[in-house]
């Protein structure tokens, strides 16, 4: 993929504790799955860096290539790709998400 775009993702995901690439924003999600992810994180009192992929087609396609993951939303914690809505929900239900966020 484009080196500049990759560098952007590297910097963004490592420079913030939690990053969510989503449709819409944390305050106004534009898709049910993005809304669900935002809600889980907010329920844990986690502030996250939100990136609205709808605002930039290059980001929207680029992030899928970056993670080999075909869908949005995509969640990163401590610079590591964690998954989408299903995985975040599952980790939350098992109590593992709170641990990953340093709340365990």
């Amino acid at each position, binding site marked *: 993929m484009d080196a500049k775009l990759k560098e952007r993702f590297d910097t963004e995901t490592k420079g913030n504790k939690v990053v969510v690439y989503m449709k819409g924003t944390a305050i106004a999600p534009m898709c049910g*799955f993005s809304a669900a992810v935002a809600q889980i994180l907010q329920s844990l009192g986690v502030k996250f860096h939100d990136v609205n992929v709808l605002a930039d087609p290059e980001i929207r396609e680029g992030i*899928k290539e970056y993670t*080999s*993951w*075909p*869908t949005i939303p995509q969640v990163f914690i401590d610079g590591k*790709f*964690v*998954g*989408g*809505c*299903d*995985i975040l929900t*599952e*980790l939350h239900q098992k109590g593992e998400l709170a641990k990953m966020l340093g709340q365990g």
Partner: protein
Amino acid sequence: MEPDEIKSLLEQGLEGARAEVSDMTGGGDHFEVTIVAPAFEGLSLVERHQLVYRLLNVGGSEAIHALSLKTYTAEEWARV
């Protein structure tokens, strides 16, 4: 896409897998899938989902718009 089509893609693609697929809206593009497969042993959740996405060509075609996925090994399934 029909639920049965997804079920057979998964069961043929993953040895010894059992899959349950339901069409959530009746529209043929929103699915809920539960899969129990030995192939998930030792894989992270991300790796399991990537495996399923590849088999179903999610992202490569627009046939599936939304997929809710639960993956288990036989051992994990026994504890559910």
